[in-house]
């Protein structure tokens, strides 16, 4: 079998068009730049004496128009590559891009469904629906959902396993055919092979799953910790505020990279430090929910008891299962007290330490944001009204202040998932990641960078993947901020 080309049978027709679009865009951009420097402004609307409007077109307008159509043409070309990949019969004709597009079919379907449903019902969906009024927010949402669906359907999308090795495929260029050793295997390495002979494309897709399993959850935990501490610190002030703020500043002043190098090492895991840290950090979600329900249903003891009991049982069992591991004899005694039979799951030490350190790095910042918002909101009239009504402090914090702080918090949540993704990548880049075999993007970039100048293809796909996910999250946050400010 022969090497696949990037664009397959469509290339002869589409590549020149794409080239024309790109060249046209570059020329128009340069022209626009020169015209702006020369002081030629885009034409402005003029009102004539007879109440008609005249719009004069200047050269600058034509340059802008050319840019717009060039972008549209390029986007159309990209769509054609994807659609072509879906309809072309053979792998040869599809090429690499078409091949990837056809493997990503479940992702396209998911995206189309989500967008169709959301746009149809956007007026009834609150802030989420408003997102579809902002083009930037929509682009960001599409990028994020692309990776979410890729992670969900990773088994259908990926062409090979994340750690399947074909030793002949070491450092092979994109589109190389696989030796026909196994009949059921996909016949090509779409994005080439890495230095051990694993498929780069599949590892990138499975990497999305690894990354998206950890980052949103870690961010959520960081938020729980930050909110649970930030609300009372901002609301009560005084000594409590001073001491928590000092600790938060202490954690913030630690250079992230130093903390990672100190925490994420085998010796630290052996000393049980991740267990101690999770002992402290993971108690906050339980405290948060108990206080949340307790303050809400304080006047209805039956309901209150029910909710608090459910939280305590569910939260308590998962908390104890998470921190304790009776089978691991190296751990200190307190982590081995919980009986094995009730231990629902064990998190391996190295995943736990990655998780805990990411939570630990993020929560002080969340704390500061929450505290700042609370300091602002607590001077509002509705808080004073609540106090006059005799509402308890925790009710005011959790049910009056927190819902009104949701806008900035949601925006920061999106940004923070992106930042957490970058942190996780940093860990992987230094080989401190989840596990050496793991396909997560940071580790893959780290493996690929050693032979970067000779074989660039293994490092580039995970790098672009990470960038596009973080970019999507940042754009999404920007769109959300814009739309929530319009309220």
């Amino acid at each position, binding site marked *: 079998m022969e090497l696949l080309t990037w664009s397959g049978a469509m290339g002869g027709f589409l590549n020149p068009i794409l080239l024309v679009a790109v060249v046209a865009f570059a020329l128009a951009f340069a022209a626009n730049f020169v015209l702006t420097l020369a002081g030629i402004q885009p034409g402005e609307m003029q009102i004539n004496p007879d109440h008609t409007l005249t719009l004069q077109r200047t050269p600058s307008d034509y340059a*802008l128009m050319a840019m717009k159509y060039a972008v549209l043409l390029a986007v159309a070309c990209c769509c054609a590559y994807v659609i072509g990949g879906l309809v072309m019969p053979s792998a040869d004709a599809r090429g690499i891009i078409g091949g990837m597009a056809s493997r990503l079919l479940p992702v396209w379907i998911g995206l189309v469904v989500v967008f169709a449903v959301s746009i149809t019902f956007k007026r009834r969906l609150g802030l989420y629906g408003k997102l579809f009024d902002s083009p*930037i927010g929509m682009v960001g949402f599409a990028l994020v959902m692309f990776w979410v669906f890729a992670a969900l359907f990773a088994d259908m999308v990926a062409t090979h396993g994340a750690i399947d090795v074909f030793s002949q495929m070491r450092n092979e260029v994109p589109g190389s055919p696989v030796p026909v050793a196994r009949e059921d295997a996909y016949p090509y390495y779409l994005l080439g092979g890495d230095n051990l002979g694993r498929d780069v494309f599949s590892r990138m897709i499975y990497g999305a799953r690894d990354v998206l399993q950890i980052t949103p959850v870690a961010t959520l935990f960081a938020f729980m910790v930050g909110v649970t501490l930030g609300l009372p610190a901002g609301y009560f002030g005084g000594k409590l505020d001073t001491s928590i703020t*000092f600790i938060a*500043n*202490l954690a913030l*002043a*630690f*250079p*992230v*990279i*130093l903390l990672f*190098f*100190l*925490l994420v*090492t*085998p*010796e*630290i895991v*052996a*000393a049980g*430090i991740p267990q101690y840290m999770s002992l402290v950090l993971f108690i906050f979600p339980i405290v948060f929910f108990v206080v949340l329900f307790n303050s809400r249903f304080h006047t209805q003891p039956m309901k209150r008891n029910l909710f608090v009991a459910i939280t305590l049982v569910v939260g308590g069992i998962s908390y104890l299962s998470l921190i304790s591991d009776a089978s691991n004899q190296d751990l200190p005694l307190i982590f081995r007290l919980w009986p094995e039979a009730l231990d629902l799951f064990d998190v391996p030490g190295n995943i736990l330490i990655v998780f805990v350190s990411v939570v630990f790095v993020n929560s002080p910042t969340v704390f500061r944001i929450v505290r700042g918002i609370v300091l602002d909101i607590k001077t509002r009239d509705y808080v004073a009204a609540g106090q006059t009504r005799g509402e308890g402090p925790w009710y005011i914090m959790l049910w009056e202040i927190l819902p009104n702080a949701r806008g900035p918090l949601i925006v920061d949540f999106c940004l923070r998932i*992106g930042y957490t993704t*970058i942190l996780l*990548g*940093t860990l992987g*880049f*230094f080989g401190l990641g989840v596990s050496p075999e793991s396909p997560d993007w*940071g580790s893959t*970039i*780290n493996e*690929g*960078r050693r032979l*970067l*100048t*000779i074989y*660039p293809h293994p*490092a*580039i796909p995970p*790098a*672009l993947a*990470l*960038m596009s996910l*973080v*970019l999507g*999250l*940042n*754009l999404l946050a*920007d769109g959300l901020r814009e739309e929530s400010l319009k309220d």
Partner: protein
Amino acid sequence: MGLFILRRIGVMILTALCMTFVVFFLTNLYPKLETLAKTQGNARMTDAQVASWIERNGYSGPMILRYGQWLGVVPGWTRVDAETGDLTGRCIERTATAEEALNAPTFCGVFQGDLGYSTVSDDEVSSVIGGRLLLTLKLMAWAFGVMVPSALVVGVLAGMREGSRLDRSLSTFSIASTATPEYVSGVIFIVLFASSTSGISPWLAEMGWIDGRTLFLGSARSAMEDITFWNFTLPVMTIALYGMGYIARMTRASMAEVMTAQYIRTARLKGVSFRNIVLKHALRNALIAPFTVIMLQFPWLLTGVVIVETLFNYNGFGWTLVQAASNNDIELLLACSIVAVLVVLITQLISDIGYVFLNPRIRIS
């Protein structure tokens, strides 16, 4: 004002003590010492041998006392060997004679300027770290020199006409740059500009526009002796790009806020030209807020420096930190962390004080 600075410095010293203790605690945990014993002594030591090695080399005893010794406020440990009668101790050089050993100082720690001994480089930590810091300082200076002016220009241009096309494209650029961490942009830059098989270098070489095989060099090793455009552009650009977006966005926000202020409208109505409004009226006030942000970028830059030095093989401070951490070189790692912690705290202090000086509204109240 004096009281404010004094209080800030007091808090800073307290923070520095807490942080160095945390670092000391984490680097001196028993499993770490065990690894150290096995690398220094013999990889196949038994547990008893490891324990005796740790005892012999002064790593036993309460953590807080050892921290005091390291700081130099508690007398350094001394020990007389039961068999040979030799005197060993924290403050005694390994090659010292018996007489020198007796006259060794009682205290030797950070306060006395003794940072200890690097087990991997086989040299005093202070002599290892000095040269490395100088290299990193050069890298940081270049990165800052590129990053701050370009970020300010982008931010001011975007913020002066909020919502315009220029604003939207520059804002998108800044968002994209904050989404590109150093290890992504570095990899992309190397592939695009420093690879002889891909990117634009082969094409440029074919056209005869560049002398060497690549446009830029993908390794900054040669920049340690002699910085040239060829070997230092990519590391500097990589660091500058990630930090730039953030400063630019802060500048933009600050500029946009200033442009809606009353006095700008007054200037406009007086007929001042737009160029003069931006340059003479708005710019100075718009740059107060970014000042804090720029100062607080230093700690972030530290992470960037570690990544870039690893990626481009530049043996500066960040590279040393990575080596110390991965080789379990305890004293060197501690020294690195002092430097890192000091950088963070001093920049915080400068940004606090500088903000008060720059913003007269805070000084009065």
